């Protein structure tokens, strides 16, 4: 699923490793989500939204 993670992360000057540490996941997980190869679960999506102070709808682009 396409998303705005890379943009939001860049705005905060966070590396993938920084974001991974904040999410308590591996850097590979952040990379997989960011590149749209892996869709996070709802709890992780909410965690991401809270971290970026936004909504899930704003983070992920629904192409359905």
């Amino acid at each position, binding site marked *: 699923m396409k998303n705005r993670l890379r943009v939001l992360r860049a705005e905060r000057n966070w590396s993938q490793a920084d974001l991974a540490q904040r999410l308590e996941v*591996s850097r590979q997980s952040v990379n997989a989500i960011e590149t749209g190869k892996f869709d996070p679960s709802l709890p992780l999506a909410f965690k991401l939204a809270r971290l970026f102070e936004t909504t899930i709808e704003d983070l992920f682009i629904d192409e359905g």
Partner: protein
Amino acid sequence: MLCKATNPAQRRFFARFTVAMLAYVLFLLPVVWGFVHFRPTGVLAYVLAVLPALPIVAMLVVIGLYLAEEKDEFVRNLQIQALLGGIGGILAVVSVWGLLEDFAHAPRLDLFMAYPLFWVFVGISTAVVRMRYR
């Protein structure tokens, strides 16, 4: 499957797996020695023969515990895919080989080879899965 531990669940997995492997060796060596020198029969033979299999069963439990404890859902997803590849691979091999043995008189494949072969397929599957997410 895993190559190195990067979180507490993986460290616990490696520790438990190492203990189970050591138990396997510790059980297997005296059992082989016992069968070679004393040729036990009956119930004793059954009990001794099963002993080295218990750590193998424990290894499977250790894998299950790891999957239950791994908090990184992406990593857990990779491991599950790799394990499914291993299960699928070994099921395919024993199914095909079983029929080859029955109908084409292929050489007998010992059942205990299923476990090491399972890990061979897990290894292949891990490489394929990792390439997909690279």
